């Protein structure tokens, strides 16, 4: 594996790229203006094609203190459904939580008409939009970006958004960070953090005292608004030292826990650009970000950790001018391996000398980050190869379907598989089903972990293959579910048994590019039933039919009638449009048996639905 990872350390190169663009310096310029001229608000500006919105760093966080005691589940506080994509949950995952005060800050801003109007104006004029903010303004910017991304997703807008924050506190928990990765939004957040700034690290210490924070914020706000005023609210040295110690101590615990247990309530989101007097590096792996925050703070002091929060202007200017110079090396000995010299350059950019105590752990940290970023493209290519290897399993299932659909018992492959004996054929197919499921689950896992190219789920090859797999194999999954009686244990398949992969494939299929003129009428039955959940619906309808015989409560009976009626209409439409495969219509298929039973039932209206004649004849008899 080692040879397949890149043999270069690129965190510094990426920051060089960022710094050579106007994005960082323009963002900071506007943040700075917003700090002085629009406290508690924001401003917008259009530069070339790019629209900017900058939130002031001076914000009041409700009545509550900005400590982490008040994290709230995003889903419950999101009354206006602004963040729908973040509500989706994986099995066993903690819900997405965000800082209550910071969320409130954004929500109240969002509800103002001036914000709405200016956002609309910006979206009309600009192709891409940069959302930025210093300090607390940065977290507002992050929420604003999450909202815009959610909105753009819902209306399929091609607009691009980039969030650039400067020295902002953490916003939410690990689930939030994961959800962002899952939506492929990880690349839309760039958090600039200076070497010693305590603000972005603050929320890692749960018990930082309210008074300390209050004074700190006051000092920063006054300094941002007008540097001279800052002096009025200087903090006591002891307080600074206490705060520094506290944050460092907590960070250390979290950094050492590493990946195994996320002990922190808060978790980094997106990429982090760490900057020093000497340059900058850019890291996106969350665990490495926390480690880096810890290691860099170790080189700071109670004084610098407070002052660094106000120095982003200097840092940005320095990195923006770096491109002109060759840059000389402080240390004489440059390692001969290209990877090690890349690491040496990164360390130099962080202003860390190789003799320093933190040098070694910083190097290790960069190494981990690199390993985590295994080349997604390579993975995709490898997946294509393994897909080719498992394709024969799918072909065997196709073969199985064809032979069942043609066999003399006229049952079709769904019922054959459901009622199979211990024949070799059936268990072979079952084995193949498992192998395919393992393959596709692995694809989903890799995607969740950001190990595949960001446009993977838009590539026609994968969208089509996954759809075909779903249509062919999901019926077998349903058959197995009902065969083993899982529906009695967990509930019906549709609600309780459907694997996440199928829902994801549904989404890929829905979101694919479709040309307008795609409404050909079918001339023959489809080769695979176009609704892969068809059989699950049949199973539920069968249950309703059973229940209707024993049910006496008229209200419940009415409900069952309604359900059955709806299913019948749905199924008939599929059949009429020839969107079902031939197995559905075979003589002994579950569906056909159901239809027969249902019409028998309907022909005895007196017995079963004396109260509801309207459902029988389609007309109301008084």
């Amino acid at each position, binding site marked *: 594996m080692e040879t397949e*990872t*890149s*043999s*270069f350390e*690129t965190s*510094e*190169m*990426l920051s*060089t*790229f*960022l710094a*050579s*663009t*106007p*994005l960082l310096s323009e963002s900071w310029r506007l943040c700075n203006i917003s700090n002085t001229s629009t406290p508690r608000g924001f401003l917008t500006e259009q530069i*070339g094609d790019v629209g900017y919105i900058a939130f002031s760093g001076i914000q009041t966080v409700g009545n509550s203190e900005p400590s982490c005691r008040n994290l709230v589940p995003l889903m419950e506080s999101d009354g206006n459904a602004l963040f729908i994509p973040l509500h989706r949950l994986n099995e066993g995952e903690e819900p997405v939580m965000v800082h209550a005060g910071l969320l409130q800050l954004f929500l109240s801003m969002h509800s103002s008409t001036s914000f709405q109007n200016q956002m609309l104006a910006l979206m009309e004029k600009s192709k891409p939009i940069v959302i930025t903010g210093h300090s607390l303004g940065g977290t507002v910017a992050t929420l604003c970006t999450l909202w815009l991304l959610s909105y753009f997703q819902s209306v399929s807008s091609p607009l*691009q958004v*980039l969030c650039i924050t400067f020295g902002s506190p953490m916003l939410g928990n690990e689930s939030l960070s994961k959800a962002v990765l899952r939506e*492929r939004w*990880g*690349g*839309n*957040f*760039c958090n600039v953090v200076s070497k010693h700034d305590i603000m972005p690290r603050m929320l890692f210490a749960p018990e930082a005292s309210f008074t300390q924070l209050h004074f700190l914020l006051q000092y920063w706000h006054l300094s941002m608004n007008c540097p001279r005023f800052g002096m009025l609210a200087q903090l006591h040295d002891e307080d600074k030292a206490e705060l520094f110690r506290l944050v460092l101590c907590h960070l250390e615990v979290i950094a050492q826990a590493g990946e195994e247990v996320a002990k922190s309530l808060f978790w980094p989101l*997106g*990429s982090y650009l760490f900057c020093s007097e000497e340059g900058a590096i*850019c890291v*996106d792996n969350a665990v490495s970000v926390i480690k880096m925050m810890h290691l860099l703070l170790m080189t700071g002091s109670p004084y610098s950790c407070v002052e660094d929060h106000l120095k982003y202007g200097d840092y940005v200017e320095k990195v923006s001018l770096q*491109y*002109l*110079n*060759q*840059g000389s*090396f402080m240390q*004489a*000995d*440059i390692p001969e391996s*290209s990877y090690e010299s890349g690491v040496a*350059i990164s360390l130099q950019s962080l202003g860390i000398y190789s003799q320093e105590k933190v040098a070694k752990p910083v190097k290790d940290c960069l190494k981990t980050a690199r390993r985590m*970023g295994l*080349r997604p493209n390579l993975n995709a*290519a490898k997946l*294509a*190869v393994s*897909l*080719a*290897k498992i*394709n024969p399993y799918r*072909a*065997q299932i196709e073969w199985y379907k064809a032979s069942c659909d043609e066999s003399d018992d006229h049952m079709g492959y769904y019922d054959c598989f459901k009622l199979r004996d211990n024949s070799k054929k059936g268990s072979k197919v079952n084995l193949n089903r498992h192998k395919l499921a393992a393959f596709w689950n692995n694809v989903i896992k890799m995607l969740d972990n*950001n190990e595949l190219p*960001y446009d993977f789920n838009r590539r026609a090859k994968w969208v089509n293959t996954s759809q075909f797999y779903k249509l062919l194999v999901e019926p077998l999954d349903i058959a197995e579910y009902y065969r083993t009686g899982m529906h009695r244990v967990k509930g019906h398949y549709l609600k309780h048994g459907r694997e996440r992969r199928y829902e994801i494939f549904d989404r890929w299929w829905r979101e694919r590019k479709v040309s307008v003129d*795609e409404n*050909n009428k*079918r001339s*023959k*039955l*489809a*080769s*695979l039933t176009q609704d892969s959940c068809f059989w699950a619906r049949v199973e539920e309808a069968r249950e309703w039919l059973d229940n209707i015989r024993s049910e006496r409560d008229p209200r419940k009976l009415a409900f069952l009638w309604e359900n059955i009626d709806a299913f019948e209409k749905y199924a008939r439409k599929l059949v009429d449009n020839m969107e079902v495969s031939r197995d559905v219509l075979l003589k002994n298929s579950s569906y056909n048996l159901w239809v027969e039973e249902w019409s028998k039932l309907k022909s005895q209206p007196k017995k079963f639905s004396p109260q509801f004649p309207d459902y029988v004849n389609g007309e109301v008899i008084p």
Partner: protein
Amino acid sequence: MASLNLEENIEIDTELIKKAYSLAVKAHSKSSEKAYNVEGSRRSSDPIIFSFSGCWSENGWYDGEPFGVTEINLPLLFPSLRSIGVNENALVNKAFLQRFVDKILGNSNFDREVQKAVKENKQILFTGHSSGGSIANLATIWFLEKYLRSDSPDNYKISPSSPLCVTFGCPLTGNHIFSHTLRRENWARYFIHFVMRYDIVPRILLAPISSIKLEFQKVFEFLNAKSVNLAHASIDTFDASNFYMKVMKNASSVVSHAACNLMGNTNLLLETVSNFIPLSPYKPFGTYVFCTGNGKLVILRNPDAVLQLLFYSSQLCTEEECADIAQRSLQQHFGYENELQDSFQMLNEVYLEPLEQIPLSSDSTSSDIATINSALNDLGLSTRARLCLCAARELEKRKIGNKESIDLKKPDIERAMKFLEEDYQLNGRHRGLGCYDAFKLHETPKDFEANVKRLELAGIWDEIIEMLKRYELPDTFEGLIDWVLLGTRYRRLVEPLDIANYYRHLKNEDTKAYMIRGRPKRYRFTQRWREHADRNKIPAESSGESCFWAEVEELRIKISSQGFEPIKKEVLQLEDQVLDWINNNKLDRDVLLEKSTFKKWWEDLPREHKLTSCIKDLMVVVGRSP
């Protein structure tokens, strides 16, 4: 007689280069009068030199669009300037292309003079200074397209030194596909670009016009004045510095973005940010000779490495140098004569390639790399810059590695194809069926086995296609005759099975006709390979014989819904093609078997049509034979 050795068997007489330079400068200084000049003597051993002038105006460089590029869509003039499989045309500077088409090709004398030189089999040299160099590039490509065709009547005898294109301080001309194409056709070696360490002109197009608009006019006025009269021109230091800094800043974005990709950075931010800022699409090609300023010549060809070098060699040592270097970046554009004079006296050339031994530290002293190290120092390359060169090298190596691993799969491909060609075909014959119909019926275990082989092959070919789409195979790959042939065989053999599968599963009703929505890229790519390889013999899009069955199926569907008359034209066309394909063995005769879908479909056509059909004999003869 001294000569400059460029390796790869290319040697050029230094006197010739000097002469080319003086002619190029002369052409450029009189650009208002003539777009090109020819110089040559009666002696047949003497070369003939075409020198081209450029121009100094904003819309002579940036014609619309931030970087002034346009898609080359001139299949007659430049049929090769595209990525074959991906089917994407190269981008080229629009103004330069326009100038070449209007002023050079539009002048009938030019064509005549070139033809004359070709007839006399003279060594032909195209040259240009500044944007004249870009015109020379295009002229050379035009020449190669025209005279290297095997069917060209005067079949020019090429040699490693003819034709040649020599440019001085030439701006970038085309994008990555442009560069890829020239390497694929093995034409890159005809181009030699001299670039002074600080000369800004070869770097200008790395910046979008919007970023340098303020200074552009003044700088170009200065450069223009200077090209007319060397002595009498000056420019404000402030403007010069701003211009230099802005070009460098944009160049920095381009090369650091490229380096991130070369080095395999996986951060999604890279992608997002590149959507926010316009990045120059230009990419170098050919052999670059960097003049260090102290008599050394640093030579390299790797386009990724050259791009990096264009930026890093112009960086400052210290900030204080800025004003001075900015002035020099403009002055050096006219400094080639002296520099070449010095360099050719010493002939102190350093080859950076194969880029295997790039010392990362500027004070590496080990003797075997001392020469390279001192050359890199002379270009002011920092460790960062050297790492970028290494990254370019790694990419090249990776591409070669990919090619090797694909070559190793050839036996697998052959084996699977052999099964289909022999076992499967034979099995079908026993049942009186061709492969297509046997596979479509899918009745026996052999059909299942064939399907597995089809999927195996698809896996291998899809992997190749994926690599090509990402340009992760050597540039030459799509021109390699063994792969073109294998691809063609594969396509003719297996595509019918894919079509059978498609129509067996009625995928045409889920999506659309095979040809519109269903045809896999592995067949589209391989078809284009062949059409490009034989571009002189067959017209484009003409070798779709492997899609024969898809056409039959679609015609069948159309006739059953619309009747014969409206479709008649298409039927006639297909019949013509079938006749041709059968006669040329591109289509197997099993399509004519009694039970074949095609045969059955044809038999159902109206009688009066069949009587006059061009394939009626074919149908009858085979039909009667046992």
